[in-house]
């Protein structure tokens, strides 16, 4: 029983981690909470659904198309709603981000209607038992794909040229600019990557619960953000840790407080913000005066 819940925590937590990575990457570069990230996750799930259900594409191809489509959307969102405001006060940028989130969510409601749709009829629900632990193929897929994505991201950030540019930009934007780094490119790449990871999480969750709807991004979006903050926003390993912790807190918390599930995450957020505002793995940054 305990181990079953642990597997459930890992499954949920790794998708939170994928979402959290998108928040953390954008925050690291722009110091902006990309409120629309939850909607990008939702769009990813819808693209996956359309590819599988209407175009009957194999799952892994649908998955890749969903990631690519969301990456493009993420880049557009940045160009339309954030780029014109780069020099503006942060409050302005934040309000624009909220506007974008509301806009995307309700546009989806108008286009797709509020009803939830099943992801696919032929999902493999087989599961097996090791000792007393039940694991489904789906859970293994989700956990494995998430780990793969995170390793890929790690490699990309640590080893590739664009990754280095991203790290430099997040460390000191004006210095990076002086070094000849094209900040616009770095920001686009960040949004593309973060959105692709969000879309991956969207498709995986769509599969897991076999349900996709326009509002599905709202809560996981917030929770991904909470995971990022818990781990220390701007910190990539922190996002993973935060996601897993939040997943665990929710799964185990729900056993005792089933109807207060959503409150658990927010309580965790407020507690972390009050006790250690920089998050578990973040470092304190003081505003230069």
């Amino acid at each position, binding site marked *: 029983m305990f181990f079953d819940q642990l597997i459930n925590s890992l499954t949920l937590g790794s998708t939170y981690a994928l979402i959290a990575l998108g928040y953390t990457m954008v925050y690291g570069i722009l110091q*902006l*909470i990309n409120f629309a990230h939850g909607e990008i996750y939702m769009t990813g799930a819808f693209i996956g659904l359309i590819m599988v259900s209407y175009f009957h594409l194999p799952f892994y191809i649908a998955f890749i198309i969903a990631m690519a489509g969301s990456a493009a959307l993420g880049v557009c969102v940045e160009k*339309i*709603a954030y780029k*014109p*405001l780069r020099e*503006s006060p*942060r*409050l*302005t*940028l*934040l*309000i*624009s981000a*909220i*506007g*974008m*989130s*509301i*806009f*995307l*969510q*309700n*546009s989806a*409601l*108008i286009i797709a209607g509020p009803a939830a749709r099943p992801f696919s009829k032929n999902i493999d629900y087989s599961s097996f038992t090791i000792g007393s632990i039940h694991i489904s193929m789906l859970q293994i897929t989700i956990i494995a794909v998430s780990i793969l994505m995170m390793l890929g991201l790690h490699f990309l950030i640590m080893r590739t040229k664009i990754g280095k540019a991203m790290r430099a930009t997040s460390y000191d934007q004006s210095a990076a600019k002086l070094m000849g780094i094209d900040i616009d490119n770095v920001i686009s790449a960040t949004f593309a990557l973060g959105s692709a990871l969000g879309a991956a999480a969207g498709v995986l969750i769509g599969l897991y619960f076999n349900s996709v709807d326009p509002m599905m991004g*709202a809560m996981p979006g*917030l929770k991904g*953000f*909470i995971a990022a*903050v818990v781990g220390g926003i701007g910190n990539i390993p922190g996002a993973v840790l935060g996601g897993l912790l939040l997943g665990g807190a929710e799964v185990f918390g729900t056993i005792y407080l089933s*109807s*207060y599930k*959503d*409150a658990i*995450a*927010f*309580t965790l*957020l*407020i507690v972390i*913000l*009050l006790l250690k*505002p920089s998050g578990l793995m973040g470092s304190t940054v003081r*505003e230069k*005066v």
Partner: protein
Amino acid sequence: MSGYYSQIIIITGINILLAMGLNLITGYTGQLSLGHATFMGIGAYTSSLLTKAGLPFYISLLAGVLIASLFGLAIGMPTLRLRGDYLAIATLGFGEIVRTFLNNLSITGGPNGIRAIPLKTDLTTVIILTAVCFYLLYRLQSSRLGKVMRAIGQDEIASEATGVNSSYYKIMAFVIGAGLAGMAGGLYAHYFRYINPANFTFNKSIEILCMVVLGGLGNPFGPVVGGVIISILPEALRNISPVVSQYRMVLYGVILIVMMIIRPQGILGGNGLFINANRKGNFKIFRSVKGAVKNADS
């Protein structure tokens, strides 16, 4: 006046009260709160439960204001340590937590909410309360206290360096803003006579934010202009499409983005319309309307 128009005016008044409070919190002290509808909900639930328990309307309305203010204090105090964007999320989280409780507690009627609330709100009450609150808040905003709040919003470090205990004033803004929202909630509940948690969601908070942004953050008249536009808008939209509510939200999203990019100071301008003020004596109670308008934003 026909019921239709009186309903629109009542809704407008309630919305103006909501927007005025948020304007003080966000437009003046610069704290982005995404949980303003929650304070409204707290006022609505508190006052409805009390009137249904037999208390006179004005007493329960006042209690709703006080309890909402208390929540404002409770959320304002701990979140002071948070930077702008974290505060936004924390207030949003606060809203979700309260909503979860409203949905699960038996005293609040769960998702069914509270029905058969006595009809107590009428046109006159709303107009008088809105006007009085506007006047008092206007005085406050154009006094030195209002300037202190505005200074905190512009540059908290500089205002602390001039001796301003910014935490104190930021909490004060939260308490006043939440109280006004509580009053709006009480009026709302005793007009529509039925409330449930779905009336006070994140979407409502966004609607309030839209009013303030549209009218002009930090302009004392902004909430009036924004409140009127946003209250009349759905009536205009109703003639275009039956699925008003989603189109309305889409429009709010567009308004927020476009305003931020094109005119972040709102229609009236954070200061714009009311520059060149020539104020004399902060504390003369009665002043001509013209003087008031001229002095509004000095």
